[in-house]
């Protein structure tokens, strides 16, 4: 029988339709502005949750619901003003260790959530927020490693009682000059035991050994530099209070950070972009500072300036560095001055312990080092410029022997203490990072984009629907059903995949609306042609679908190829466009060919038909 679908085909199509409707439903419920509170490490307790609830209620804002789940509290509010008010209050009251994040809590009913149905994931251009692309400075990472090896070598040589004349860095090499060539065997043994990451070359001079960070080690360092940066960024972002941050590696040395809802970009940049570390140095009290100021710094010391501008000489040797710091928190010291408490790891603690034993009563300085990265244009050339800003932030006399835990004072304000401890707690960065791309969208523009996108979608859709109905009559109406079905499928698949919907993505859906009727136009024109050739309505329908298929397949396939290439090479919002285009093309082939056929078979199939309404 012509124009009759087997039962299974009908069932598959209807099932696809029902599933698509269910999974696109969450998009209709919208979301509430909400404030989420969690603890950096522990889960919140019920009594803490109760405190938070009463704090929020004390502000007098309307709280829709207050949930306490998985050690986090979520308060749903009615508008963004209330949201800001509550967030500010909680920021002040909850202190450093809690993360207060602004969020949009979806209103999806429980039964939909239970089957995993979620609303589409909106891109930053629709929900507002910040996108950063950070580049990790790999050269600096390798240099830092050389530096570390240099110091560790001296220490190891001393401990092993191998007498050396000098350990110097030269052009990527670390050169060790021994006092006596007899120690060379001992040195080689030490190197092969404790310094496997170094490649050894032996120059002609018997007393010398040249070392280079090995290729494998360099690769490892680079890999770790990115990995460590990502971890650090994750911690920092958590401290910023972002509900759904995205942190992803992109390429070999770039990291993408997306912070939905973040408005204060300068603070975000400050926290993400600077590399701050601390170095502890002993103050050099034996030499004259004034002489150093006039340009004659003694060997082994370096001139620094304190925050108030007064010069100070510090021993060049580093006691510990930021990467040996495992934790820090801001508090007040006994006199109520802002301070930062610091905990060290084993190596750092050992070094600190050893030093403080012999240095009680002597001044020790903390140098705060920031690497600010800038790209400047010098003589028309783009030059990446790294500025190392060193500040002595405190000079304190060592009061007793300490190793693992101690405090640093001398900070200007509680705010500064908080900032410093935040940066330190997140761990010192393995290598400096540089913001190479930023895209910020304010919340008003995000909402604007959604509104405009929806508006142009509905108008475009209505125009096409009207046009098809007028031109193709009943067949046009059937094509319109397929068109609506197609949009539902695209939305359902986007929701299921949790692919990011961007403004160009919405444009992609709109474009799909315009293009997906193409398959139907091809079929309908073919049916008309068959009718004109004097064929019966039934066989015209049959032939129309059969003959148009090859054309539809070829033309849609090339379109798909372009969309896939676009997906592969596009970034950000362009990728969003490609995604909707790909899904739209595929689903339109299904709806326009199979979907319309089913309905047309129902109407015209298996009966005598004199005339088609086409």
């Amino acid at each position: 029988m012509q124009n009759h679908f087997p039962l299974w085909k009908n069932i598959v199509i209807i099932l696809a339709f029902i599933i698509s409707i269910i999974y696109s439903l969450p998009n209709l419920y919208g979301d509430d502005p909400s404030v989420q509170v969690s603890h950096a490490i522990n889960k919140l307790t019920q009594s803490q949750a109760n405190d938070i609830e009463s704090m929020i209620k004390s502000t007098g804002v309307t709280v829709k619901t207050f949930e306490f789940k998985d050690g986090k509290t979520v308060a749903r509010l009615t508008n963004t003003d209330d949201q800001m008010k509550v967030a500010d209050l909680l920021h002040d009251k909850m202190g450093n260790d809690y993360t207060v994040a602004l969020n949009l809590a979806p209103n999806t009913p429980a039964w939909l959530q239970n089957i995993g149905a979620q609303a589409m994931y909106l891109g930053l251009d629709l929900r507002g927020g910040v996108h950063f692309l950070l580049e990790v400075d790999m050269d600096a990472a390798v240099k830092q490693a050389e530096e570390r090896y240099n110091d560790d070598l001296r220490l190891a040589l001393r401990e092993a009682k191998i007498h050396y004349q000098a350990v110097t860095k030269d052009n990527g090499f670390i050169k060790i000059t021994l006092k006596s060539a007899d120690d060379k065997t001992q040195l080689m043994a030490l190197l092969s035991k404790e310094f496997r990451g170094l490649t050894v070359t032996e120059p002609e001079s018997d007393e010398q050994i040249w070392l280079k960070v090995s290729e494998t080690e360099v690769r490892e360092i680079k890999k770790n530099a990115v990995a460590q940066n990502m971890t650090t960024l994750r911690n920092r972002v958590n401290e910023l209070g972002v509900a759904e941050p995205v942190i992803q590696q992109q390429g070999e040395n770039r990291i993408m950070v997306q912070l939905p809802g973040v408005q204060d970009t300068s603070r975000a940049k400050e926290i993400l972009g600077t590399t701050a570390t601390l170095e502890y140095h002993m103050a050099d009290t034996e030499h004259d500072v004034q002489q150093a100021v006039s340009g004659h710094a003694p060997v082994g010391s370096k001139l620094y300036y304190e925050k108030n501008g007064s010069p100070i000489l510090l021993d060049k040797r580093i006691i510990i560095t930021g990467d040996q710091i495992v934790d820090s928190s801001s508090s007040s010291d006994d006199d109520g001055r802002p301070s930062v408490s610091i905990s060290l790891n084993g190596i750092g603690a050992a070094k600190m312990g050893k030093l403080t034993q012999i240095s009680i009563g002597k001044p020790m300085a903390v140098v705060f080092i920031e690497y600010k990265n800038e790209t400047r244009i010098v003589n028309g050339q783009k030059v990446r410029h790294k500025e190392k800003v060193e500040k002595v932030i405190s000079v304190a006399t060592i009061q007793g022997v300490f190793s693992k835990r101690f405090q640093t004072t001398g900070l200007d304000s509680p705010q500064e203490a908080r900032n410093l401890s935040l940066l330190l707690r997140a761990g010192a960065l393995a290598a400096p990072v540089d913001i190479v791309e930023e895209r910020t969208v304010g919340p008003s523009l995000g909402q604007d984009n959604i509104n405009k996108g929806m508006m142009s979608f509905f108008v475009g859709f209505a125009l096409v629907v009207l046009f098809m109905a007028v031109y193709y009559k009943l067949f046009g109406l059937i094509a319109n059903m397929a068109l609506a079905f197609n949009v539902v499928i695209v939305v359902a698949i986007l929701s299921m995949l949790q692919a990011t919907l961007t403004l160009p993505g919405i444009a992609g859906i709109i474009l799909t609306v315009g293009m997906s009727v193409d398959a139907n136009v091809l079929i309908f024109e073919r049916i008309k042609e068959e009718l004109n050739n004097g064929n019966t309505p039934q066989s015209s329908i049959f032939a129309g679908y059969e003959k148009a298929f090859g054309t539809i397949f070829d033309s849609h396939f090339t379109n798909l190829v372009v969309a896939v290439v676009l997906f592969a090479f596009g970034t950000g919002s362009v990728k969003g466009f490609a995604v909707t285009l790909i899904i739209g093309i595929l689903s339109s082939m299904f709806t326009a060919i199979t979907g319309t056929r089913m309905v047309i078979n129902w109407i015209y199939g298996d009966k005598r038909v004199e005339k088609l309404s086409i």
Partner: protein
Amino acid sequence: MKTTNINFIGNRNIALIFSGVLSLISIISLATQGLHMGIDFTGGTLIEIGYQQPADLNALRQKLDVEGFESATVQNFGTAKDVLIRLKLQEGVSSADLSTQVLETINKDVAEPASLRRVEFVGPQVGDDLAQDGFLALLYSSLAILVYIAWRFEWKFSLGAIIATFHDVIVTLGLFSLLGLEFDLTVLAAVLALIGYSLNDTIVVYDRIREGFREFRDKSTEEIMNISVNVTLSRTIMTSLTVLLVLVSLFFLGGETIHNFALVLLFGVFFGTYSSIFIASPAALMLGVSPADLMIPVKDNSDIAHLP
């Protein structure tokens, strides 16, 4: 629409001359004026701010001048209340912090501070990468399509389709160049979408020509082409119209950020439709397409044509 019988192929010289002139103008404009590249490719900073009242652009310019942002261009964006500020990568000024500084400058000593709508900063390296990726996307999609059509049809068709598509792309880019419109990532995406669309249109016609080669053994290539273009004409126009409808809606209602995207496609769909009627078939004809070329692929195709 009744099936027409217009002698498209016979009068191909008119279309070819018209297209030749258009392409030439476009190429000259692209060569002399070039494209006005957006910061996505050049690197730089772009800041969009909004006011409650129409903004005083001159006051803004002056303020920025005084604070040392001489290179900033200030213009309205969409409405009189929205302002777009562009800054080039500057000598001696840190670029990542630039947006913050500019916003601080603008909001200094004013009663009603501007609200930040959008900031885009693209570093020079990223700009180069994006441009390179964009170029590769163009190259690879062209290659992939060339291979696919060559496989499904024949290399002369493949080349003909690419010629027709390139014609559309060049003319669209030419218009962009002539009008001095900004070329950014979204516009590039639109150009790629245009390639997909233009090919789609061309392939529908080619498909019909292939069918004609099978069906009318006694007719000349030129005749078959003419019949094919004519029978697909109403479809070509219908589909273009529906796409144009949604694009017009996108152009007028989609907002300023999507404006140029819609514009590229509007131009492109127009020329894509034109080229699939007037250029694609003559190009294949002039490359020497004949029914003999498709004898074997025809068999190949039959198993796909009968899939449900």
